[in-house]
């Protein structure tokens, strides 16, 4: 009986959601704010990747907020799973094939991640994607070798310095008399590596930060497994 009432209620809610979603103009030309972004991204920000220019330049404040959310999640995890005596990971070593191939793949993965976040303003990608790729490569090494250790102090320092870089770039906009997070470096010619003002610098800082953070999270989680 309860299932019937639940299904009826869900049908009513689903009908209204469907009615709302069917009225949306999907797949047509962009209007409003989106059209302005598409038209003036090269002129105003000097990057050819519109997604990057929106994420870092037009809505850079939201990106700062999201980086803070990731930082808070990693800190909260560290606070809840805090353990004064550091343990070793207690998983077994993996088989020979995994051990050998992960030693070869790991540097290539880190290189790919670094490529993705350095070229964020030219190709699809950016800081978050590059950092996640680096963390995945490190995860492969964690699972293959029991004795692969990362230096927690170094990771924390990298993370804090990268975050400080991001906020300092923003505050330097304030100091020079413009608004917070304004693009104060020269824009350069589009489609070159050194273009876009502060956008590559911010994405490099974000890439380092996300990579270090996700590695710390994975290390903390993997150390809580006993036996």
């Amino acid at each position, binding site marked *: 009986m309860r299932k019937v009432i639940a299904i009826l209620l869900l049908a009513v809610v689903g009908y209204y959601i469907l009615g*709302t979603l069917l009225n949306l103009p999907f797949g047509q030309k962009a209007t409003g*704010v989106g059209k302005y972004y598409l038209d003036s991204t090269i002129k105003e920000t000097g990057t050819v990747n519109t997604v990057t220019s929106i994420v870092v*330049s037009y809505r*850079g404040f939201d990106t700062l907020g999201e980086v*803070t959310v990731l930082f808070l999640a990693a800190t909260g995890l560290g606070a809840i799973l*805090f353990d004064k005596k550091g343990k070793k990971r207690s998983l077994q070593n993996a088989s020979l094939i995994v051990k050998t191939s992960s030693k070869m793949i790991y540097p290539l993965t880190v290189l790919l991640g670094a490529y993705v976040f350095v070229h964020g303003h030219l190709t699809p990608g950016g800081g978050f994607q590059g950092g996640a790729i680096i963390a995945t490569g490190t995860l492969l090494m964690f699972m293959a070798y029991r004795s692969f250790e990362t230096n927690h102090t170094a990771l924390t320092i990298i*993370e804090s310095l990268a975050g*400080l870089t991001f906020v300092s770039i923003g505050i330097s906009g*304030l100091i020079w008399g413009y608004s917070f997070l304004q693009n104060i470096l020269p824009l350069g010619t589009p489609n070159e590596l050194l273009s876009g003002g502060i956008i590559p610098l911010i994405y490099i800082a974000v890439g380092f930060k996300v990579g270090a953070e996700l590695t710390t999270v994975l290390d903390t989680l993997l150390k809580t497994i006993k036996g």
Partner: protein
Amino acid sequence: MSPVHFIAIPLFAAFLIPLVGKVSKNLVKLIPGIVFLYLSYVAITLFPIGIHKPIVEIIAGFKAPFGISLYYGPLAAFLTTMITLIGFVIWLYSYKFIIREPIEKYYMLFMMLITGSTGIVLTGDVFNLFVFLEITAIAAYSLTAFLRDKDGAEAAFKYLLIGSFSSTFVLLAIVLLYANVHTLNMADIATKISSVPLTTRIFILILFLMGLGIESEMFPLNGWAPDAYSQAPSPVGAVFGGIVVKASIYALMRLIYLMFEFQSVMHFLVIMGVITMLIAEMSAMRQQQIKRMLAFSSIGQMGLVIIAFGVGTEPSVRAALFQMFNHALIKSLLFFAAGYLVFHSGSKKISALDGLGHDKPITSFFFAFGALAIIGLPPFSGFWSKLYVLLSVANSGLFAAVALILFSSVVEAIYYLRVVSRLYFNTEVATDVRRTPVSGLVAMGILTLVILFVGFYPNLVLHWMTPAANELLNKAAYIKAGLFH
């Protein structure tokens, strides 16, 4: 000196704390204090400017609606000053109260909780509101589980599950809103919202009500609140009840007044506020643990604020803001006093507090003071705010609501005076040789003095609240200042 300092400086300090923590632990405890002192200075400097003419600050140099802008009008000025000053007092209290281990992580999460609430109040952009809601929520989940015991983990898990629903609903509402009006600036949406079909508008409003209602503890959505308030450390409970819930109610009311001004929503808010207040006050009477009782009382007072916002006239909005201000001060004082009472008596139950009034006179005095203030007795500030709320609700003809508010005030008086009488008039059960630290007593003393001052001169504070109330009700002025500054 601009409103973005409220967000940039705490973020800078939060990223600095792990580095400083590697050098010296004692220095880490001082960093939030320095940040809050500086922010209080900024708030007091900007407050007179913001009251007369709204400051609209653009971020990243792109004018609204193509970039993000912060709107520092009279309402934001008032709320930001309140949040920063109360945040400073709560830091002072937690300087000696928090002794469990990852201390630098506590201060970082605590500072971010308050910064997230400041961001909700300051922003003029809908997606930015969502980002700051996320910052506040993630810091809140981590701090609820900070004491790492079984009850704390369960309370944090409940809060996490229900809070994830809240974030999802708000995000879905923002996505639907953007797909229909193609802009994210609140002033711009207010001009374009009438071109959206009516069913879609109602659906978006329902999603916002559910999402923000979970954080503002409206009736069926506040199941997480008693556990979270009572299992978190006491200063964190003070931040939840005094700051976070106020920011959420501000966000909900700003969205409703600016974009979704339907008459039926106002009626719905009044009815929901009445139900919230009644159920919370009656549940509070049956509690055996003191911090859960305070949590239910906080939910009930927020029901009162929602009723006053729901009435929608200018005197009632002014009364609602005054009630928010007073409740933040008094509830923080009560949580502080309850924190030390629990610490000295060793157990969370009310029955363990028997006779503690003779052993620890100062802390018990602060608790009794707060209890009398929140019930609404005359020389304290709670009297004036409740009086104004009752007058404005009665002036709109809702006499049933007035009767129910008076009934729940009587219930409140019963359960608070019950605790106070156990403190002073029962025989002693436990004595404790530890003394309450000075920083806690100073924090409680500051709050007491402010409550007494506002109680004797309420018109001083009410004078600043008239422009704030006018700003919330005046759509045209907001749109003009937000888009064409």
